[in-house]
């Protein structure tokens, strides 16, 4: 394990990333390689995979076995869904949302992508940009993952040639012009042999860029959050039943965006009452500036009727307050979306119900073609829909704010989460 000095560890940032690729792209090998080369594999884990590699007659230790899953999965030869893996370097702690490449990829990748700072997309250098590369990139752009890293893998199988790498880069660039991607990097790697994963490749002197690990450690993520529009969905009202705190009213929640300070003039939605922030605190400690993703408690200068599901915003910067709006929805369930159907909806800390007013179009995520005729929205489909809610929702567009722009739809009879929505 890496050596952490205490202070160094306290200054680490957290980076969440998702990985996409099909079974043959070497995704598991790449994750295994990142864990192995950053010395995050313990002896008992390594022994277990060495043993299983030799049982299977492999020449090398199969690093992909490190991410092998449950008995239920091995029996069926599938991966059930997102598995989370952790590793750290002295600079950052990483959370990988490892999503499988089989048929339910859309549902799983959307889930993993929803909280990711970065997406790693694997492309086989021999095959170039494929239909699935388009799908993965589209989902990354739809979910507004701030950083995209295209790992052009298996460079060892194309003799580490620059031309093979450049060809994939060109193919991807012509595709990505159709997508909404903020920051994209291209890396030539071999996950199997370790080229440019943690250690710089000795086989590609033509490549002067960073290794994957360097990139992950240095991606500029502190500006990924929205620090402009102040949004605080009230999660829980703290009213101590102790005499010393008789008049205490604290509004507990997690800051979605913006920077809140004591003295700020705020507006409470939906009542539109105005008040001033008295304190922002956690466990009795006053916080001078609170920003996403902090969990805090806010007290106000006067009594206002506030409950869970309300939102505290700045007086002069309010979100949309509407009952009808459009959503890009990814369908997560085998029961198809019902046009005219009613669903439970969750947005920030607010519960509501909604009716599907219109299915505008379905997106063919392999060609990015919009199909206005096909209204059958099943598992893994992505569509633009219009909905009407029972109560006003306080939202920003997903593009501006991932926290106040996202919703989930819930089947009221099974209680399952069946749709993931990004407000247009």
């Amino acid at each position, binding site marked *: *394990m890496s050596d*952490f000095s*205490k202070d160094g*560890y*306290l200054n*680490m*940032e*957290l980076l969440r990333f998702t990985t996409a690729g099909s079974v043959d792209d070497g995704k598991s090998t790449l994750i295994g390689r990142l864990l192995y080369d950053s010395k995050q594999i*313990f*002896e*008992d884990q390594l022994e277990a995979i060495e043993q299983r590699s030799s049982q299977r007659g492999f020449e090398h230790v199969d690093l992909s076995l490190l991410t*092998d*899953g*449950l*008995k*239920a999965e091995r029996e069926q030869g599938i991966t*059930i*869904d997102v*598995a*989370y893996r*952790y590793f*750290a370097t002295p600079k950052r*702690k990483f*959370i990988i949302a490892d999503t499988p490449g089989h048929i339910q990829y859309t549902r*799983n990748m*959307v*889930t993993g992508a*929803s*909280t990711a700072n970065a997406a790693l997309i694997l492309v086989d250098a021999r095959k170039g940009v494929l239909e699935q590369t388009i799908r993965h990139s589209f989902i990354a752009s739809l979910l507004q993952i701030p950083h995209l890293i295209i790992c052009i893998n298996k460079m060892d199988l194309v003799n580490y040639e620059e031309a093979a790498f450049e060809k994939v880069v060109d193919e991807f660039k012509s595709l990505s012009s159709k997508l909404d991607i903020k920051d994209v990097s291209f890396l030539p790697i071999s996950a199997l042999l370790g080229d440019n994963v943690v250690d710089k490749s000795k086989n590609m002197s033509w490549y002067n860029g960073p290794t994957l690990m360097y990139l992950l450690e240095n991606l500029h993520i*502190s500006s990924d959050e929205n620090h402009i529009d102040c949004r605080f969905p009230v*999660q*829980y009202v*703290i009213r*101590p*039943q*102790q005499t010393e*705190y008789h008049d*205490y009213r604290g509004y*507990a*929640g*997690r800051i979605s965006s913006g*920077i809140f300070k004591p003295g700020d003039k705020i507006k409470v939605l939906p009542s539109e009452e105005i008040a001033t922030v008295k304190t922002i605190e*956690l*466990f*009795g400690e006053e916080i001078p500036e609170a*920003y996403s*993703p*902090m*969990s805090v*408690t806010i007290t106000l200068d006067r009594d206002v009727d506030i409950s869970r599901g309300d939102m505290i915003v700045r007086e002069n910067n309010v979100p949309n307050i509407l009952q009808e709006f459009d959503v890009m929805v990814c369908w*997560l369930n085998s029961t198809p979306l019902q046009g005219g159907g009613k669903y439970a909806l*969750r947005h920030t*800390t607010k519960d509501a119900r909604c009716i599907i007013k219109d299915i505008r179009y379905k997106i063919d995520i392999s060609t990015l073609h919009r199909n206005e005729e096909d209204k059958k929205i099943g598992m893994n489909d992505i569509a633009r829909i219009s909905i009407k809610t029972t109560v006003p929702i306080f939202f920003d567009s997903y593009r501006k704010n*991932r*926290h106040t722009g*996202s*919703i*989930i739809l819930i089947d009221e009879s099974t209680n399952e*989460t069946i749709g*993931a929505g990004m407000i247009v």
Partner: protein
Amino acid sequence: MILYHLNHLRELEAEAIYIIRETASQFERPAMLFSGGKDSIVMTHLARKAFYPARIPFPLLHIDTGHNFPETIEFRDKMVAEIGANLIVRNVQDSINSGRAKEEKGPNASRNMLQTITLLDALEELKVDAAMGGARRDEEKARAKERFFSHRDEFGQWDPKNQRPELWMLLNGRKHQGEHFRVFPLSNWTEMDVWMYIAMEKIDIPNIYFTHQREIVKRDGMLLANSEYITVRETEKAEMMTVRFRTIGDMTCTGAVLSPANSLQQIIEEVAASKTTERGTRSDDKRSETAMEDRKKAGYF
């Protein structure tokens, strides 16, 4: 420009507090599982932070196997008195006495499996609809797939194939009558994060996490504390060693590690240099490759 960015421990803290508050909001009768181990101590600390200055608005539930380290019980009672929490204890011994659970036999007998029976009975008796636990995804591969809000059927069983997708931080705790949830606020923490957080927040922990002298029985590569709960075989002998515990569970299945670490700083250095996983000191996980997955399906944490 790192001005408006949290360090990773503060981000994990904010996430856990959010999940705990969400549990208190979405469920009628939540409870927090408390074992006396470091993870449940950290979780309890986070619950205090989440609702301060109010007290923790749900009970702590301890499923006492009767095979706990005495130091753990002593710590538990002191902590509960200090923070004014409502502690509920349910005993595996009572489940055995009433015939609900059957004691294992032999030198490796453990009450680990029996806990599940007492736990499920307690959840039903107390009508708990969300039980928070300190399990972490880095502990074991079955746990790597856990949700923050993990749905359980009427029998308390975990069906890995039928879990709700969790997007953004929109947690769905809706359920039918009789069903309940397990909630894991520390899902994204690693062993190292827990230790660093304990050091950062100066959280009190049981003294057996620090080095001490103890009578130890070596068994199957593990260092078990000699106690009335284990049977020393003829080929074994109990000897004094300088040890500490890396995890705290039952005395029958929690192995010690040889260690001179007597401060959090030294423990952290030891964890950073460690070559084996934390669960490597737990014989309950060594019973088979899928021990955790099988127990979880049956209703274990």
